[in-house]
């Protein structure tokens, strides 16, 4: 079902090649680190080697005396720079504990990588070299690594908070219903899963460069960020610099995956240093700093229970999470589990629901949004649990799922967790995925190999997922205690020559906004997509925006572009009607021209209308000149994309090797603007999810040292580790927005981890293996097989 080479005219639904590509393909595109800023100083950050320690003393005099060093500061030196600590914008409960998080720690470090001093040099080498000359006397304290251990408060990370318990948040709309469902259940499944910590590892590390204008008091902040708009607000709050004096520019940005959805110490530091030193200051993150000091993802222990009737219909789901916050709360750290909190029933019609999450502090890097953020965790809980239920009932995993799907006629569906799913049609996606995966034939091959006693066992894993994206209706965010709104802004402007400028508040870093927004506008106006220019990522040019995360760009930002275009058309129609002496109702916009219905010879091109709006010589009485419209769109609901993924693995029960031999993804993201880009998002997302299942893990030792801080220890898969994919799709438009779109940036990651893990367990089930932690490395698989063998021998004896 791959998109074939149909000629793309740029209309919505066609695979228009990306407008972004040429500058990226030729090396012309400038990322932060590529910007040449004359006179810029370079900052280097000294980081704690201890997970938990008191700073007894800190001496920077050696660094100050080093060649090429201009300045050096401790946390105490810079204390007065901060009007507020670094922000946490999502205090999920009224009694949440929030530790003070300063860009440079003052008396105490709370994770390995916590910043304690900054050195500023004429060159990066000078600054980095001088870090060695800073003398810090630490009094090491015990690390808090394990989540259960953290809950005991034997060692408290932040003494001033008195406990490691950050918050407990619950969603139990009808406790009695849950209790009675479990009391009456014919089958109960009780599973425990561990979400290992992940390092997002965008290929471009973070970087920031602040250029001050000391006499005007203005600052331009170039940052490799997903969120220039939010960053501007927050840096104003942290440094006390009036917001109107700040301009944030996100130039070309090399991927984010949530890791650049944050307000980081180094961004605040460079701004404060530029203010102090009255010179441009830049900082470039090293990969090892990216592992330690950029947020990590996941980090949870999940308990999930299903109560099912005799036929395998699930009547209740109960979930208990322990979520690792890390040492500090970054921008949305505590809220990440809440993004999944409503989705632990997955695509199933489960009438009773209970969810509780406790956030806990450890002496590790803060967690925060990592591709999918909360929703991969939810899917990785419900989908393996559904397999466990199928196993218990002796049913095919596909059959159990089918029996429990939310029926198509129930949409819009009010879930027991309190959401309204906009639209869904789950059966056809499952059917298509099974067909593309040759499910029956593969099951037969699996059985044949089992019968033959082959070491290379086949496993088939299903994952039927639903996600909520399009973050977010502002009122819903308010009810979740989030400190901002979820709207997005767009301006569409026809210029004098009839060309179009689109200003978007949604900031791209690889998603293809420029292409897709051009398609939306070109489709509506009937112009060539090449005649559309898209401006983004600079708060001076695009002052209003809520940026890019949570698969929100199209279903919020794209819809804003659509609506602004519709407004422009409405005004253009009024001008055309006035000039053509026709009534507005008699005009239709066809192929870029307003035509009198039934008399196509009477027409006026949209470009001509734009020129009339520009000259303003002959506009309807009282109409403002110009042809542009601005829209701020607040979505009335989330959108709920869904689909089924199928993984086929070959597991060598002797060596523990897992080989992913086939992968099928059938996704439904509603109407597609550019199917080529949709497929690209799925491919990339799927590999990130596969990576969690099979390769990646941020490993901490008992002393809280991160053991996987380079790309040689942390296994980001290469092309050699993954196969090509078979993609399909169904289209169930969202009734929530006029475009019928949903979002697809995270779907692949959400769906693929459980598909792969279910496949691995499916291969090993006949050997008695019923549980396996991620990543399913050869070592782990081999050990699980050996354990199961021993247990079986024990039983026989």
């Amino acid at each position, binding site marked *: 079902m791959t998109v074939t080479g149909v000629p793309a005219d740029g209309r919505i639904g066609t695979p228009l090649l990306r407008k972004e590509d040429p500058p990226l393909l*030729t090396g012309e595109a400038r990322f932060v680190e590529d910007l040449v800023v004359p006179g810029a100083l370079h900052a280097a950050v000294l980081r704690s080697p201890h997970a938990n320690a008191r700073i007894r003393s800190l001496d920077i005099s050696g660094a100050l005396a080093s060649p090429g060093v201009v300045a050096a500061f401790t946390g105490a030196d810079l204390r007065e720079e901060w009007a507020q600590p670094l922000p946490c914008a999502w205090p999920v409960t009224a009694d949440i504990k929030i530790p003070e998080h300063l860009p440079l720690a003052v008396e105490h470090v709370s994770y390995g990588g916590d910043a304690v001093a900054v050195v500023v040099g004429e060159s990066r080498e000078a600054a980095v070299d001088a870090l060695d000359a800073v003398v810090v006397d630490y009094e090491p304290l015990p690390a808090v690594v394990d989540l259960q251990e953290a809950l005991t408060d034997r060692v408290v990370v932040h003494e001033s908070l008195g406990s490691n318990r950050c918050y407990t948040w619950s969603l139990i709309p009808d406790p009695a219903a849950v209790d009675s469902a479990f009391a009456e259940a014919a089958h109960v499944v009780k599973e425990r899963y561990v979400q290992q910590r992940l390092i*997002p590892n965008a290929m471009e590390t973070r970087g920031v460069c602040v250029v001050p204008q000391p006499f005007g008091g203005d600052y331009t902040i170039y940052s490799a960020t997903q969120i220039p708009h939010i960053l501007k607000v927050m840096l104003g709050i942290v440094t006390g610099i009036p917001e109107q004096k700040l301009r944030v520019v996100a130039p070309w940005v090399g991927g984010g995956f949530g890791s650049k959805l944050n307000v980081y110490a180094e961004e605040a530091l460079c701004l404060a240093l530029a203010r102090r030193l009255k010179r441009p200051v830049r900082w470039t993150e090293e990969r090892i700093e990216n592992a330690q000091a950029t947020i990590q993802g996941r980090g949870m222990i999940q308990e999930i229970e299903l109560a099912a009737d005799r036929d395998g219909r699930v009547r209740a789901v109960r979930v208990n999470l322990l979520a690792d916050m890390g040492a500090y709360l970054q921008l949305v750290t505590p809220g990440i589990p809440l993004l999944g909190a409503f989705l632990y029933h997955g695509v199933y019609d489960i009438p009773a629901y209970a969810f509780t999450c406790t956030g806990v502090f450890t002496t590790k890097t803060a967690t925060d949004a990592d591709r999918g953020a909360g929703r991969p965790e939810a899917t990785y809980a419900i989908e393996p649990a559904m397999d466990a239920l199928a196993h218990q009932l002796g049913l095919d995993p596909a059959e159990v799922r089918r029996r429990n799907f939310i029926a198509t006629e129930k949409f819009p569906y009010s879930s027991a967790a309190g959401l309204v799913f906009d639209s869904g049609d789950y059966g056809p996606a499952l059917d298509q995925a099974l067909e593309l995966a040759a499910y029956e034939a593969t099951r037969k091959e699996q059985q044949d190999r089992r019968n033959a006693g082959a070491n290379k066992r086949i496993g088939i894993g299903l994952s039927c997922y639903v996600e909520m994206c399009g973050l977010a209706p502002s009122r819903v965010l308010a009810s979740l205690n989030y400190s901002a709104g979820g709207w997005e802004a767009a301006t569409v402007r026809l210029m004098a020559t009839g060309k179009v400028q689109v200003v978007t508040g949604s900031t791209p870093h690889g998603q293809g906004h420029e292409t897709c927004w051009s398609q939306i506008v070109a489709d509506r106006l009937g112009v060539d997509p090449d005649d559309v220019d898209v401006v983004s990522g600079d708060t001076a040019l695009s002052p209003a925006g809520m940026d890019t995360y949570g698969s929100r760009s199209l279903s919020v930002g794209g819809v804003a572009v659509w609506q602004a275009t519709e407004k422009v058309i409405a005004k253009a129609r009024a001008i055309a009607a006035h000039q053509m002496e026709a009534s507005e109702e008699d005009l239709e916009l066809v192929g870029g021209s307003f035509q009198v219905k039934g008399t196509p010879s009477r027409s006026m091109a949209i470009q001509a209308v734009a020129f009339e709006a520009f000259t303003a010589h002959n506009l309807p009485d009282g109409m403002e000149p110009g042809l542009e419209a601005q829209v701020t769109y607040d979505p009335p609901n989330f959108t709920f994309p869904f689909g089924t993924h199928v993984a086929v693995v070959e597991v060598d029960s002797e060596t523990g090797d897992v080989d992913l031999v086939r992968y099928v993804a059938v996704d439904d993201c509603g109407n597609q603007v550019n199917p080529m880009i949709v497929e690209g998002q799925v*491919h990339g997302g799927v590999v990130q999810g596969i990576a969690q299942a099979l390769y990646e893990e941020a490993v901490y030792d008992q002393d809280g040292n991160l053991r996987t801080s380079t790309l040689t220890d942390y296994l980001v898969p290469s092309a050699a580790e993954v196969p090509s994919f078979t993609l399909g799709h169904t289209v169930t438009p969202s009734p929530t927005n006029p475009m019928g779109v949903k979002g697809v940036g995270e779907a692949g990651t959400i769906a693929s981890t459980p598909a792969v893990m279910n496949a691995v367990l499916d291969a090993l089930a006949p050997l008695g293996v019923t549980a396996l932690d991620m990543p399913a490395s050869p070592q782990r698989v081999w050990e699980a097989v050996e354990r199961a063998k021993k247990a079986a021998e024990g039983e026989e004896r």
Partner: protein
Amino acid sequence: MRVSTTVNGRSYEHEIEPRLLLVYYLRDVLGLTGTKVGCDTSSCGACTVLVDGESVKSCTMLAAQADGCAMTTIEALAVDGALDPLQEAFHDNHALQCGFCTSGMVMAAMSIIREHPGLTEADVREGLEGNLCRCTGYHNIVKAVLAGAGRQAHPVGAAR
């Protein structure tokens, strides 16, 4: 110390620090910022360039070692505004998203194509093992390299 190099057909002579890495010579001294730095453990391949025709991770080599060498970076591929066929194949197959890995991927692919006359998907996947991409899942990169090698020209999208 002094180095003389030929980069993208132009000759240069520079006084450099002995410890200067080739990637920083290209980026900071010559201003050729199309070559990227993504790690410090020679793992990511974002810095891949051609040195005397061979693909090399330019963070693993000192500028001093490139003395007398002829080098090609991503900036040299498109001529007079026309993309090289391999760049074209990346474009046609949507083989880039954020584009940060792209110059390294393209440069690595150039030498893979040259080294494998009957290029297969497995050759491409193995050949690109040292080049990481976090966005594309490699599917379309592999397609692009095969297409660029003149095999299996079946782009996912078509020219505008």
